């Protein structure tokens, strides 16, 4: 409900108008420019000349089919969308009114969503906007949003880094820096699912208990660390070496199923481990037995069965006199 208010007629000259509406355009009844608001003049640049026709200054994007200012005002009530014809890629929204008497037309324009592009392209400042305009709030919001998004992205990157570090830690044996049992299970599961060909070595140190008992736990730990270093040196980056128990290790050699190759890798590892290790002037001597199994020996490779077979091969190696590697061909399922 609107109360009936008395109608007041205003008498504004164009400099007052320019202050209140820095993007207005005053046209004569035929659509020729009489005056421009200062900000609109910055948009139109060389087109902002008194006497210039509306259709020379603007391409009408909506209402469709309209060309002249009379078309625009006649076709779509009083709202419209325009593009300046000087190549400035800034859309303008506006409304227009034929002033009483019919000899003048007043248009008031705004940048709408092209505000940010306009500010950039035309290097506008807050002096170019009326105090009532929400332009500053919109620009502020765009920057504040960008800052918040940046912070969120930073948070995501930091959380992802922390997650990866935690995952790495959960898969690592802290003493030797090798992988742990959990990692072996995951890797085996993945390789089996992919039907990859690989060799699995199950290794147990010989005489380790004797070192522990005679020289103490520090010496035992030293031996384990040394074995970790040997395994890292003897293997490629894509292979996996893990300590899965006290002096029990598993090595997965990816993409190798030739028995001779696997056997020679195992023997090389044993030879290195058999070399005496020097712990604070004390000599530690251990050896290693290795059971070998190949994923290709199983019709459908499966982690538990591979580990069980490797364990049998290891038992055979120990039984055959320690310091040996035995490759066992699984009898399959």
């Amino acid at each position: 409900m609107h109360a009936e208010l008395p109608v007041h007629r205003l008498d504004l000259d164009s400099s007052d108008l320019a202050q209140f509406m820095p993007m207005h355009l005053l046209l004569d009844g035929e659509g020729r420019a009489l005056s421009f608001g200062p900000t609109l003049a910055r948009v139109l640049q060389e087109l902002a000349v008194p006497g210039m026709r509306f259709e020379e200054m603007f391409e009408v994007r909506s209402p469709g089919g309209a060309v002249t200012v009379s078309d625009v005002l006649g076709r779509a009530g009083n709202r419209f969308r325009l593009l300046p014809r000087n190549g400035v890629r800034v859309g303008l929204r506006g409304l227009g009114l034929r002033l009483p008497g019919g000899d003048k037309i007043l248009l008031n324009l705004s940048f709408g969503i092209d505000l940010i592009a306009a500010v950039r392209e035309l290097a506008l400042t807050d002096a170019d906007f009326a105090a009532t305009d929400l332009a500053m709030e919109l620009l502020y919001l765009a920057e504040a949003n960008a800052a918040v998004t940046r912070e969120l992205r930073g948070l995501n990157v930091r959380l992802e880094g922390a997650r990866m570090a935690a995952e790495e830690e959960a898969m690592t044996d802290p003493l030797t820096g090798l992988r742990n049992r959990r990692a072996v299970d995951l890797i085996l599961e993945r390789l089996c699912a992919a039907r990859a060909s690989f060799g699995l070595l199950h290794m147990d140190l010989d005489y380790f208990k004797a070192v522990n008992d005679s020289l103490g736990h520090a010496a035992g730990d030293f031996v384990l660390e040394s074995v970790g270093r040997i395994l890292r040196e003897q293997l490629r980056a894509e292979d996996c070496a893990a300590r899965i128990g006290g002096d029990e290790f598993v090595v997965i050699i990816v993409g190798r199923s030739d028995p001779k190759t696997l056997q020679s890798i195992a023997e090389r590892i044993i030879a290195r481990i058999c070399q005496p290790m020097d712990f604070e002037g004390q000599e530690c001597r251990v050896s290693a037995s290795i059971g070998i199994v190949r994923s290709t020996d199983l019709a459908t490779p499966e982690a538990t069965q591979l580990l069980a077979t490797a364990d049998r091969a290891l038992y055979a190696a120990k039984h055959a006199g320690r310091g040996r590697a035995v490759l066992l061909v699984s009898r399959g399922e």
Partner: protein
Amino acid sequence: MQSMLGPERKVGMDMDALMLRSLQGYVLDTFGLASWQEICRRAELSVETFEPMLRYDPGTADRIAQVAAQVLGRPVEAVWEDVGTYLVTNPDREGVRRLLRFGGMSYADFLHSLEELPGRARLAMPDLDLPEVTLDEVGPDQFELRCQSHLAGTQRVLVGMLTAMADDYGALCLIEPVAADCTKISVLDSRHSKARAFALAMPER
């Protein structure tokens, strides 16, 4: 070890998180990693990184600042003022200066815009509650800025920011806290030096 995050570990900004993150950035950039680690150790923190988007127990920022003041050997008020200056002047945090410069064309405009700051902040982060600010013009070029915050450090951070922004606008000012929640600002010369350039368009990254 005290847990820094309550059980209701929510995402969303709060004043403690913003102040802690700012303090962390200031100490790391100004004094280096060793000082920050020493602060974390003495404060018995379980982490060394404060996240601006997570929530911390109210008052955590004041507690950590007390430890920082001991480690850095300066009064806690001075530490917070430096944090405020750092936020505005650090080139990596250009965003803060830009957002504040949207406040207006002159330093006085900027001061008046501070009343709108909580509203502006809520536009971008609806759950961010900046402390309400009121500015009274008590005489020609004389202002009193009041700010109610649950954190003692807030006023000093504001003082640091106001000082740095005066430089940015090229204004010569006297800025002095006169009560726990009131800061007096006298603008002695609003065109004392050349203002730093400010274009409305966001710098391209």
